[in-house]
């Protein structure tokens, strides 16, 4: 298990995440875990009581979690959004752009490599969930 990486100022949420079914089954849980095949939109009515959404990445190839993150951020979710599982260093910048702000990678991520990779691209072509300004906006003010 690699170290938890966080890009938030608040304290890490301690409560263990429950499954989506358990969460929707009228629990008081404030942390929930979404598996790749589950529909994050089911959480939308409850966003104000959620402090942590953990999105599972059982295999790095499975990219459904990227859409899960964007759906939640676009709906206004501001709590912690964690990518857990097979998260590789080269994926973290893309995940950050989709709105993830914490990472629980299965294998350790080298911090120097990660730093370089997060700083590498000065510009992005498209708007996403991270607030980066797309180049078309820079071109036209």
């Amino acid at each position, binding site marked *: 298990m690699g170290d938890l990486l966080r890009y938030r100022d608040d304290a890490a949420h301690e409560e263990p995440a429950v499954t989506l079914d358990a969460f929707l089954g009228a629990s008081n849980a404030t942390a929930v875990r979404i598996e790749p095949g589950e529909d994050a939109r089911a959480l939308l009515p409850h966003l104000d009581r959620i402090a942590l959404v953990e999105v599972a990445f059982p295999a790095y190839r499975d990219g459904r979690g990227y859409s899960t993150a964007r759906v939640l951020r676009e709906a206004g979710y501001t709590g912690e959004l964690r990518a857990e599982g097979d998260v590789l260093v080269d994926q973290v910048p893309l995940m950050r752009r989709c709105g993830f702000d914490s990472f629980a990678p299965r294998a350790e991520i080298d911090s120097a490599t990660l730093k370089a990779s997060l700083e590498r691209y000065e*510009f992005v072509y498209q708007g996403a969930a991270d607030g980066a300004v797309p180049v078309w906006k820079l071109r*036209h003010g």
Partner: protein
Amino acid sequence: MYQYDKYDQSIVDARVEEFRDQVKRRLAGEITEDQFKPLRLMNGLYLQLHAYMLRVAVPYGTLSGPQMHMLAHIARKYDRGYGHFTTRQNIQYNWIKLDECPDILAELATVEMHAIQTSGNCIRNISSDQYAGAAADEVADPRPWAELLRQWSTFHPEFTYLPRKFKIAVIAADEDRAAMRLHDIGIQLVKKDGVLGGRIFVGGGMGRTPMIAPEIKNFVTADDLLSYVEACLRVYNRYGRRDNIYKARIKILIHEIGADEYRRQVEEEFVAVKALGIDPPQAEFDRITAFFAPPAFDAGASDAIDRTDPDFAVWLDQNVKPHKQPGYAIVNISLKKTGDIPGDASADQIDVMADLATKYSFDELRVTHAQNIVLPHVAVRDLPEVWRTLDAAGLAAANLDLITDIIACPGLDYCSLANARSIPVAQKIASRFADQGRQRDLGELKLKISGCINACGHHHAGHIGILGVDKKGTENYQLLLGGSGAEDASLGKITGPGFDEDGIVDAVEKVTNVYLGVRADGERFLDTYRRVGMEPFKEALYG
């Protein structure tokens, strides 16, 4: 042509450094081949049977003389002196060393080129009509739309780990020269009440389950384009199958849930996505469009031409197409000379084509999905000189769209997935029909060969298609008839039991003989097949 500004250049330069770092980590053993694989694939680097293969992007098939020269330079310096133009309008090099790859990318970046997203489960290089900007039948130049999509799809954070690869084509004419409806998303630009918009087709593709894309939306304007395709992709990324790689393309999702249900989900998603403000303003669309303004044609150029040289006249009739500007023509350079490997060109030939583009075609070339090259804007008065130069370089084969203008994938000679060789079969068929009069008599006949079910050689879309299969350890070839990738798109049907390598060449000859025997006036092979059906062909093959 589109030209990079500091933002485009910065992104491509950063990509070179990123890949340099990834290769360094791989060579140092910091990452395993398994971890490196998705990284190199995202950059067009495959591990083939004998070496690494690098696929370089030619966005919507358009490139300049200096860019073409760079492709020749790379062939000479890093490969064995040639390159292979692909059905995706790209170029691949088959003998690349991993440790040299970052330097190749750095050289490409100096002429605004790259290998970004030429493989991997992401949005691939956008393809388009090779006659864009030159064809008389287009409602607009489709390339500004393609460039808009290129920028939007480059390093799209949400769509880099899709269920499967994703291909988009944009055309702007009723005649479909880009096999648009055999793409994951096909866009045809049309005008409605004077306004330009796109018809959106989703869910086409080749592979083991070929499908022709249904229309999902009949009109999307440029200012909604990115939101609309983002919605299309998001529905796919969330619900496309990931349990079976053969069922992971978007065509299967749409086939399983139905076009109506898919459309409903996209419309719902579109409402949410549109509110995010991800569509660039008109000013950005205008900025891109300005790069594709027509070149400074000579308004007084004449269409008069001296046809006394018979070889020149044959080439003129077969390979030169009308241009929308009087006094100009579109020149197709066939990379299918008998005996050659379809789509291959030597470094010297690439240089010749680059020079011709600079001198006679406003510095522009195109790569076609039929693995040929186009000089889009040649003055009619320059055609004899262009032809002489091409002829001297072995590039004047007058066989565009004839039976020897064969599309063939690399097959078992290079590809690790292949069941059978494609190249030798293409060469044998080309030799059999080498006689110019014979091929011209057969007329338009699109023959396409794939070395396995993945269909990179588009065999389903061939008037005659050939599919290499493995039959108890030996190479065997199935014959298909009746496919088309054009505006009358259809999928070929298998004739029956397959053939060995020589048998398939004979089989092709037999079906062409049936055609010659029963064709009505003006009918192409495909038209005759559609009229008389499979039976007479089967009879000749197996009767």
